[in-house]
């Protein structure tokens, strides 16, 4: 686009904010306006002066964004972290205000302008840092703006003051924004908002919190149709969709997608094990890479070490400390289960450059830039190229510095993943963030929010929510069900007597009952609090949370690693695990639920390409070259599949038959696929099949021969009846119950927050399982159950990916191999045994079997003890 109006000389270097030379040729205007205070400089000049005062000049993309804002556009700015995205969107509104308020003498900071900008941040922990970043230009330019935050952390007095008059610019979270919408009295102020900026939109996109934001934006847009909506995002595979979700799909307003400097200098390396031949093919190694990693950390000022799970952070922290005892106090651990105070301490240490290394999980993916960090280590597969890129971007925030990431493989095959990720990054193949389609639980919550915040007429709100990307295809029937659900409890006429949440009077939906309002406000949001148990020192200091099931397995005095320290369990009281510091070796390492991500579909595709290349003997880059020996072995015993081939290895041993399939589609897809295949095979003949999967493939095992060749001919991979077979083969009810927890929480059935905190509400606490059962039994038409079924298919089973994968397999060439031994690819499946699901057993049989297994194990122990 042409930038004449802005009189930009030349595109600045894409790599760093260019320093303004002292004898600036571009400072003619400065000379013309020597004392801006007296002569009221143009708005743009004020901004340029601000950049100049930091020794910088605006980037072209920043000016592009300001111009678009000035013209009334909405848009999305995407760019690598630390490249000036914030100023690209923040100065648009400031320029707009300056244009209308040129006379400085009229500026009065005692009487700041009314609310005009809303800044939405996904993490409330980020609000304080964001506030600092946004305040800097305000103060430097002497603007009379009042800038404040409003989050769950804000004090009650500030919140009360804000309810009377909101500041000029407000930093808030999706949840706090929705809370504002419940206050009808704020409507005049909210309708005066000129611009909304959503930070880290890629984090919110595709989640229920993102949908909350979409709905809230639709509401503000209704109050002010000329609202400008801007988003900041990391680079995604589906930016156009992301932009549409932000701006709304019925918007007549022009919108822009502006690319910032994405090509920050980047260096990606791998630690190639010193002795490749001793390096495990698969599985998770303990400490063999630690000394090499420590050497890298030694060479830099400050490093972030990303591990994929919280348990891994604890383990790696200990390994590093054992390797370098002198680093005690200089390294730390950071993950989502640590108490806020612990995390803040670590973050401050990083900010001040006091810590040499922090071992962390995705908990440090987001947020403030730690300028001291000049190296990132990634332990184990990053599972996606966008994530790898984002993590790399956490380093090198000094002007002109490059981002540096070193990959620490935990097994040999992971080196292929890194090589694949490098390719994907080079070709700009970033993961798309799949969007959610009309989650009714979020709509239920939103409808109650609006009913509280002044009420609505059915047609008006329907029209409004249909402007969002998520609900554009909402049917009249679905909308009617939502209204029925909040007014009468459900659509079946007799099922919900005495139910009161929202009342209808003259086609106006509103809430009058105080306790409904209070309960709703307390429970706005979509985040499910897990059933975590607090971990505290005897002195009372909280260090974090662990899952109750972990603590319940410990005995008093058992030692475990937590927050990088060895502690022992002292006592469990009132849902708190009290611990004290301990010495010796740990008995256990906490495991937290969730965490294990499947390989992304983009990275899976890139991985297939790399293996294809290897099958041609084309080994590019140090990672692939280092695997030469492994590839040769694989080819000697079997083959390396090309992208149009599906490799199947059959091994017959005394103990039984093993069939390995390698679709390379990621763990979740493989889990679903394994169940379906095993189910279909057991339908063909009476047999017992057990299965395991990882990101690369599936293994099916049986004491009998598995007639895989015949089964394939007869349609083993057929997409026909797939959904039925998935349902039959997986324990669909259990999965649904797990999924229903969030739905119950979002739609207001279960109360969020800590149990026991609101004693008065304890008689209306019930678990989501009870709701699930009650609906299934007494109101099976409840659409939340239908939503739950959809979410299980899409989110837990990656349904679309699974059916695409089967199509690919059916069209591809099948390479049936009968290797003499377990091949390197197959070995990964024998080691990497992952969670599996039962298919056709009833609950009773499962319990009986587990009981038997436990007894056998106990019997073995007894036998061992008696033989001593």
């Amino acid at each position: 686009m042409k930038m004449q109006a802005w009189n930009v000389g030349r595109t600045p270097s894409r790599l760093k904010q260019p320093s303004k030379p002292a004898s600036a040729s571009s400072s003619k205007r400065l000379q013309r306006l020597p004392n801006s205070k007296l002569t009221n400089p143009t708005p743009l000049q004020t901004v340029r002066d601000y950049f100049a005062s930091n020794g910088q000049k605006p980037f072209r993309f920043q000016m592009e964004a300001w111009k678009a804002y000035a013209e009334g556009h909405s848009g999305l700015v995407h760019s690598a972290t630390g490249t000036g995205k914030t100023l690209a969107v923040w100065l648009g509104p400031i320029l707009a205000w300056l244009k209308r308020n040129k006379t400085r003498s009229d500026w009065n900071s005692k009487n700041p302008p009314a609310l005009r900008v809303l800044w939405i941040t996904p993490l409330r922990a980020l609000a304080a840092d964001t506030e600092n970043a946004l305040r800097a230009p305000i103060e430097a330019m002497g603007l009379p703006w009042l800038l404040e935050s409003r989050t769950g952390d804000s004090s009650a007095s500030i919140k009360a003051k804000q309810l009377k008059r909101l500041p000029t610019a407000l930093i808030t979270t999706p949840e706090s924004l929705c809370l504002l919408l419940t206050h009808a009295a704020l409507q005049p102020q909210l309708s005066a908002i000129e611009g909304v900026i959503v930070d880290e939109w890629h984090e919110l996109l595709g989640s229920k919190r993102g949908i909350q934001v979409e709905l809230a934006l639709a509401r503000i847009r209704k109050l002010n149709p000329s609202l400008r909506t801007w988003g900041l995002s990391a680079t995604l595979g589906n930016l156009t969709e992301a932009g549409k979700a932000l701006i709304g799909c019925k918007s007549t307003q022009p919108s822009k997608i502006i690319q910032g400097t994405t090509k920050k200098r980047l260096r990606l390396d791998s630690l190639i094990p010193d002795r490749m031949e001793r390096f495990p093919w698969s599985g998770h190694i303990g400490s063999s890479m630690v000394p090499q990693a420590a050497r890298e950390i030694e060479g830099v000022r400050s490093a972030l070490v990303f591990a994929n799970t919280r348990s891994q952070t604890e383990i790696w922290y200990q390994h590093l400390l054992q390797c370098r005892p002198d680093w005690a106090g200089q390294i730390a651990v950071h993950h989502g289960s640590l108490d806020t105070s612990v995390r803040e301490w670590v973050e401050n240490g990083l900010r001040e450059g006091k810590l040499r290394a922090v071992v962390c999980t995705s908990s440090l993916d987001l947020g403030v830039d730690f300028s001291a960090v000049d190296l990132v280590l990634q332990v184990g597969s990053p599972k996606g190229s966008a994530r790898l890129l984002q993590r790399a971007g956490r380093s090198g925030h000094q002007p002109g510095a490059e981002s540096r990431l070193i990959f620490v493989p935990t097994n040999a095959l992971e080196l292929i993943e890194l090589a694949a990720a490098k390719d994907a990054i080079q070709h700009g193949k970033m993961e798309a963030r799949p969007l959610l389609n009309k989650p009714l639980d979020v709509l239920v919550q939103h409808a109650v929010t609006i009913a509280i915040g002044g009420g609505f007429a059915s047609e008006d709100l329907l029209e409004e929510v249909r402007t969002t990307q998520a609900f554009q295809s909402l049917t009249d029937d679905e909308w009617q069900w939502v209204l029925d659900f909040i007014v009468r409890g459900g659509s079946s006429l007799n099922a919900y007597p005495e139910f009161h949440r929202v009342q209808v009077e003259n086609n106006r939906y509103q809430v009058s009952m105080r306790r409904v309002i209070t309960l709703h406000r307390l429970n706005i949001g979509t985040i499910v609090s897990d059933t975590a148990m607090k971990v505290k020192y005897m002195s009372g200091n909280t260090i974090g949370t662990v899952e109750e099931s972990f603590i319940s397995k410990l005995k008093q005095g058992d030692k475990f690693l937590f927050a990088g320290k060895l502690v022992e369990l002292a006592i469990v009281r009132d849902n708190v695990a009290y611990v004290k510091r301990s010495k010796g070796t740990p008995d256990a390492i906490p495991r937290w639920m969730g965490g294990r991500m499947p390989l992304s579909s983009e990275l899976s595709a890139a991985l297939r390409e790399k293996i294809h290349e290897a099958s041609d003997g084309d080994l590019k880059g140090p990672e692939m070259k280092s695997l030469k020996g492994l590839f040769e072995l694989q080819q000697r015993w079997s083959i390396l599949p090309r992208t149009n081939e599906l490799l199947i290895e059959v091994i017959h041993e005394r103990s039984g038959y093993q069939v390995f399939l390698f679709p390379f589609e990621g763990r979740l897809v493989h889990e679903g696929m394994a169940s379906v295949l095993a189910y279909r095979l057991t339908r063909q003949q009476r047999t017992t099949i057990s299965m395991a999967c990882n990101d690369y493939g599936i293994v099916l095992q049986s004491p009998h021969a598995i007639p895989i060749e015949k089964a394939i001919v007869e349609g083993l991979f057929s997409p026909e009846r797939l959904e039925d077979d998935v349902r039959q083969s997986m324990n669909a009810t259990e999965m649904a119950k797990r999924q229903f927890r969030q739905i119950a929480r979002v739609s207001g059935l279960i109360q969020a927050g800590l149990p026991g905190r609101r004693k008065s509400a304890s008689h209306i606490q019930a678990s989501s399982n009870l709701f699930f059962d009650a609906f299934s039994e007494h109101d099976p038409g409840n659409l939340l159950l239908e939503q739950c079924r959809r979410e299980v298919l899409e989110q837990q089973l990656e349904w679309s990916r699974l059916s695409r994968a089967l199509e690919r397999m059916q069209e591809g060439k099948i390479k049936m191999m009968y290797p003499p031994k377990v091949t390197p690819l197959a070995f990964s499946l024998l080691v990497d045994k992952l969670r599996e699901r039962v298919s056709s057993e009833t609950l009773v049989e499962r319990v009986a079997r587990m009981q038997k297994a436990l007894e056998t194990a106990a019997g073995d122990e007894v036998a061992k003890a008696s033989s001593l």
Partner: protein
Amino acid sequence: MLQLYPLAPSAIEKTGHSSLAVSIEGLDFRLLAKRGLYWPEQKILFIADTHFGKEATFRSQGIAVPRGSTEGTVATIAQMISECQASRLVLLGDMFHARSSISEGIRESLDAFFLAHPQLRFTLVLGNHDRGIQALTKGWPIEIIDSGAAIGSVSVSHLPQEPSLSTKLLLCGHLHPAYRFTSKMDSVGKLPCFWLSNRQFVLPAIGEFTGTQVIHPSKSDQTWVIVDDQILRI
């Protein structure tokens, strides 16, 4: 690794029973998978924690729960009475969930129950949710007794407590006990259970819309879990 069995149900051996005869402290009982305890000698059916009308309380607070749970619970009780031919029903506390639980619909279900069982002797042991119950149950033939009272050679109570010296066993409720089954490879979540510990016999909650609490039995305890419609001794 978990097993995938062939789908012919006949090939699967039944492992549990819908009721189980047990002998405790020399007394013979039948544990029912419908969550009741039957004492043939006295023709008494014991149940605990019906929490009638819990869903109505939720509804009155603006939380959508369909009706039907209370009717379901009442129907289960009626089935057990008819199957065992019990002449007396002893409810070990927490008959109603809250004061707001006695809605019109709930009243109708219970009216129908009492109408259908004119000969049944209905005894309620007072529980912590039962404060002020007398006013609420007027019109129904309910005999109300305090915790600790003796019935034959057992004593009954809502809360678990030390059984009196003159009785062999204490039957109680309140805990809504459940047992969590997990192994390295599998987890089936919480299963409601009967729990015998130190001559205190805790019954599972019978109310459909009631939660459970995980218990951790000691080695000398006895526990029976309810899995779907069957009982398994652990």
